[in-house]
Structures are given as structure tokens and as C-alpha cells.
């Protein structure tokens, strides 16, 4: 069972129970307390506390100079954050919703990701970009997307997504403490999910995958919002006598396919689950690498369950679009009967 939670030193303290959103808020607060160079920037993150209240209370406690309500211009947010980082600040940015990161894409891809290499290692860009992402909240267009593949393809960026409050806390702390740009994708429909958070424990490495549930017959891999889906599916499948292993990838770039390959070598089958469109999505990279690394162990091709090659649909259709437990179960069936 040790595999089920990130291995960490037992501190003897009782972890607090927090929601995932609150864990992020706590991580921001602790990071700001720990390092006066940490500044927050974004739209409506000040007095309002962000549209999801993730920065609640921080403007009040840290003031206008640490929590910046920026003009409504994402390229400006990232571009000025780069300038601040070049001076030694550690900006943590909030992009209000997944679909609104694109005005900043140029600054992220051509500048944030490449400035360190361009400088021959002289510069570091410790900028964290928080992006609430994914669907399932019944929102209007641009508020439910999963653009992680568009960042993972870019060298110079790291891309992570937590699935539990504890990971949400620690992975953000680690991202902020690190010296590289990190795109931190927050599974917004899990903001209210509760879980233990031990802020004193030694955290799991930021980019290592974790086996959340051991199993024998097939491996499910997800990250962020779909880890919960996978665990739900594993539970249902167990009722039908199928032993499903669930791997939480946690990091999309780098991808810890070693941990995953170790699992697949045991189970012989893999289904990757993410909300992003399957075409050119993370599942493709995972399938390619796992097939390369487990060629003689795979008893079926790696299957992918995710979004279709279609714009995220209007809310009334999102349950048909998302990788629901039923769709994952269907893929398990197809894999097992391949």
C-alpha cells in the first residue's frame, strides 16, 4: 500500500483535511511567507480572490505589491512576469481559464521557454503559470479545455497537474521553489475534492508518477482530473472481478514513463485517460513510448480515452465528450478482449 501515496517521511503530525482548491491557496500563502520574492499576478486575483477564490485572502494579507491585479492582457501578464523573473522575482501567474492562455502563448513559447537556453544558462526563469483546466463544470465555451499537449511539446517548459489536495499543495510549492518555468494545470472540477494535506511531510519528487492503486489485469494512466475517474473505474471493475492498476502520472513534461512501464510490464495492458483531445494528445506520446519500452509485454495496443477531435462542446453535451467511467470501462473491455 506504500505505493498508493507518495512516499514521505512520517512526521507524526496529523495532516489537515483540505479541499484541493484550498490546498493551492495554502501553498501560495506558504510560498509567499517563505520567500519575499514570490509575487502573484493575474486577473481578479486581488480583492476578489480569483474567480475560483484560489487567491482568497492573499491580497488582504500581502497587499498590492505582492498580489497584482493586472490589466486584462495575458501576453502582458506573462511578458512582464518574465521581466520580473529576470530581476530575481518569482512570479506565480493565474490564467483565469484554460481557454484564455492563448494570447500569452507567444510569450510562453518564444520567450519564457527559450530564454534560459538563449542565454547559455546565464538566466533562470522561475515563473509558474497556474491554469484551472478541464471540463465537467457546465461552463460556457473556452472554460473547459485541456491544452496541456500544446505546452508539453515545447522544450524549456515543465508541465504538471495534481490530482489530490496533497499533491496540489506540494507540487505547487515545488514548482515555485524550482528554477524553471512550470505550467501548473489545476483540475478545476476537483477544486472541492477533500483530502489530507501534510504540509510538514517531505514531498514526492515533482515529476515522478505514482501508483495510486495496485492491480494485476490492466493499467490505467491519468493525471489531474482523470485520476479520480480511473480510481472510480478501478472500483467498479473490481466489483466485476477485474484487478485494475491506476497510475497517476502527475507530470506531463517530463513524463515518468519508467514508473508506468514497470506497471505495464506486469499487467500487459494500458489505457491512457485524459480530457484533452486524443489526436496529438498526451496519450499518443505515452502510447509511443510505452510500446517502445514494453513491446514484448503488451498484449494489446495501448488504448486512449479522451476528448474527440472537436471543439469542447456546449455544456449540455459535455458528459458525452468527456472520458467518463463508462467510456473507460469500455476501453478496458476492448483491451482485455483484444
Amino acid at each position, binding site marked *: 500500500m506504500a505505493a498508493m501515496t507518495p512516499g514521505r517521511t512520517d512526521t507524526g503530525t496529523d495532516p489537515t483535511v483540505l479541499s484541493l482548491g484550498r490546498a493551492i491557496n495554502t501553498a501560495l500563502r506558504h510560498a509567499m511567507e517563505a520567500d519575499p520574492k514570490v509575487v502573484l499576478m493575474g*486577473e481578479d486575483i486581488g480583492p476578489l*480572490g480569483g474567480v475560483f477564490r484560489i487567491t482568497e485572502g492573499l491580497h488582504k494579507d500581502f497587499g498590492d505589491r505582492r498580489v497584482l491585479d493586472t490589466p486584462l492582457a495575458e*501576453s502582458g501578464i506573462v511578458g512582464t512576469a518574465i521581466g520580473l523573473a529576470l530581476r530575481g522575482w518569482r512570479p506565480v501567474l493565474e490564467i483565469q481559464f484554460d481557454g484564455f492562455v492563448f494570447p500569452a502563448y507567444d510569450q510562453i513559447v518564444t520567450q519564457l521557454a527559450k530564454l534560459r537556453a538563449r542565454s547559455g544558462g546565464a538566466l533562470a526563469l522561475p515563473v509558474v503559470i497556474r491554469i484551472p483546466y478541464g471540463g465537467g463544470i457546465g461552463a460556457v465555451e473556452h472554460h473547459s479545455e485541456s491544452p496541456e499537449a500544446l505546452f508539453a511539446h515545447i522544450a524549456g517548459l515543465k508541465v504538471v497537474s495534481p490530482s489530490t489536495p496533497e499533491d496540489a499543495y506540494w507540487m505547487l510549492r515545488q514548482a515555485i521553489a524550482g528554477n524553471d518555468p512550470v505550467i501548473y494545470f489545476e483540475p478545476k472540477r476537483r477544486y472541492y475534492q477533500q483530502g489530507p494535506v501534510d504540509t510538514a511531510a517531505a514531498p514526492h519528487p515533482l515529476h515522478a508518477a505514482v501508483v495510486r492503486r495496485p492491480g494485476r489485469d490492466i493499467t490505467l494512466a491519468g493525471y489531474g482530473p482523470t485520476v479520480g475517474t480511473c480510481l472510480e473505474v478501478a472500483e467498479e471493475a473490481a466489483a466485476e472481478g477485474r484487478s485494475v492498476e491506476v497510475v497517476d502520472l502527475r507530470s506531463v513534461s517530463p513524463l515518468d514513463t519508467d514508473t508506468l512501464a514497470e506497471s505495464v510490464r506486469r499487467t500487459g495492458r494500458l489505457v491512457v485517460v485524459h480530457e484533452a483531445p486524443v489526436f496529438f494528445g498526451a496519450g499518443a506520446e505515452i502510447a509511443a513510448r510505452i510500446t517502445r519500452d514494453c513491446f514484448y509485454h503488451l498484449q494489446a495496443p495501448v488504448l486512449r480515452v479522451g476528448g474527440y*477531435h472537436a471543439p469542447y*462542446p456546449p455544456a449540455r*453535451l459535455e458528459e458525452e465528450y468527456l472520458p467518463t467511467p463508462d467510456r473507460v470501462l469500455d476501453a478496458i473491455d476492448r483491451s482485455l478482449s483484444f
Partner: protein
Amino acid sequence: MAHPIPPTAPDQVQLLTPDGRRVAHPDYRLDAGPDLLRALYRDMAVARRIDAEGVTLQRQGELALWPSLLGQEAAQVGAAHALADDDHVFPSYRDHGLALGRGLDPLKLFALFRGVSNGGWRSAEHNFHLYTLVIGSQTLHATGYAMGAALEDAGSAVLVCFGDGATSQGDVSEAFNYAAVYDAPVVFFCQNNQWAISEPNHRQTRVPIHQRAAGFGFPGVRVDGNDVLACLAVTRAALERARTGRGPMLIEAYTYRMGAHTTSDDPTRYRDAAEVDAWTRRDPIARIRAHLEREGLADEAFLAGVDEAAEAAALRVRQGVRTMADPEPEAIFDHIYADGHALVDEERAEFRAYQASFAGAEGR
């Protein structure tokens, strides 16, 4: 909450004082007969009523979201009345008053905010483009559309709506510049409702928004956005200017978002009730109504008639929303491409087979 936003602004064009008296302006004149005055009032009242229904329906769980236009009726209805049929409008997402003014069935708007479609009306039918949710994007579309009108010597103009917050977006500045360089017949209609969600004007800009235009080479003007006559007169002049080849213009309609940003928002977290109160006393509908009453143009029957029409419109919306069918699941795969795409066909087929597997399972 240190800077309560005063409900007046310097140099704004005004034709109607808050207590409903006509005043003259050297640059903008308006001949407004009784019919027009009554129509403006009616359109504003109906827009407000339908908008209120949006808030209610969202509270009742019928809608995913509703962005209320409350307080911005004069700006939108004034602008709508300034348009010619073949002018084209590129709205933002709060422009229900303009949508109604263009003759769009309000249920189309409700379908969007119910999550039934992401737009889905035919812009050509009413020369009213789809709502755009990505702040500022539509200003470039409008500019390109206007560049096309110029290339065709069409003699029509384009009106594009956006908010005070939008002016910070690079796209909006690029649109200003393209419009200026190509002398495009586009009117930039900025409803400065003082807030971009929780951020007041001074977080977006250091100077009044209408001043932005001059630096790109075209005039900007600030109009009292709670004065429907001024909004109409100024927009009409700007459109006419554009139609006759004199290039773009920026209008800043100085108004106020009297409600929440959307039904998801809680404005008590970031602004004072006193500020809202001050602006409520400058209510745009009260103003035109005061004028009508002062001029003896609104008797009980007329006012009751407007209320009735508004109620009827709201009722129709309510019923329409409640009986609105969900789209077919397979609609996910519709209209992504005009000429088809093999992967969409493949995924549609898989989806169909998957759906059918349940039908089978239920049949068993």
C-alpha cells in the same frame, strides 16, 4: 475599495440630463420625435426585463450562466437605433440589448447560456455576429469585415462592442491600428461599465479610454452611456462617418455595470454599495422615462403597454428555455469542418457504435 467611481465624467457628450431634460451639444444634434423616444424607452425596458429573466432562470438552474446588461441599456439601445440594416454588428457577450435591436430571437442567446449551443445563430440573417467570449478578439474580425466592406465599396459600416477591460488586450490595439491604416469603416463601441469583473478602470488604463484613439490616428469621443439620446446621436454620427469613407472612430460609452459581472460573480467582495447606489440614481431607463413624462409623451396606457410587452417577452423566454431540447449527442461531431475530416468521421462512427452498445445493453 478605495476609489469609488463617480457617476459622471468630464467631456462626455450628453443630450439628456439625469433628470430628463434635453440639452444641446455643439457637435451632436438629434431630432427625436415622440415615436422614437417611446421606442427607445420600450426597447430599453424590454431588454431589462428579458435580462432579469436571464438572472432568474440561472438562479433556477435553467442556465449555466447569465451576464447581465443591467445599467447598460441606454448604450446598447442607443447604438442599436443608430444602425442601418446593412451595417454589421460584432458583439461581445453582454450585448443583449443590441441583439434584440437587431431582431435576434432572444432564445438564441438563452440557448448559448444554457449550454445548448456555443452561439448557433446565423449572423447574416440580422447582420449580427456571434457573441465572442475571448476578450477583444472580435475587434479584429470587425476590422477585417470593415476592410472587406471598403474593398467592395459597400457603403456600409461595422459596429464592434467591447468593454473597458478589453482595451488592455493587444488585439484591440492591433484592431485600432489596422482600422486606421486601412481606413476601415468600423466604429469601436466601448461600453465602459467601470468594471472588468472585479477590476476597476484604474487597473486597466491610466487615462480615459476614448483618448486611446488619437494615438492611432482617429477620433475618440466619450458619451454619457446612460443617456440613450446621446448614445444614439454619437453612434449615428460615427457610423455615418465610417460609411462615407472617413474611417474609424472610437466611442466610449461611460456607463455602469449595475449588477454582478455574471451570475457567478459576487460584487460585494470588491465594490461598495454606495457606489452602486450613486449610479442607480442615474439609471438610464429612469432618465428617458423622466423625459417622456416631462414632455407628456408617456401616459399610463403607454407605460402599462410597455410593461405588458416586456412581461410577454419574458414569459416567452421562460417558456422557451424550459422546453428547450438538449442537442443530440452526435452534434459534437457536426460542423467542425465544411468539407469534412476523416478523423471526425472515424470518431463519429466509434461514438455511434459505443452509444449503440448501451442501447443494446438496455435492450437486454
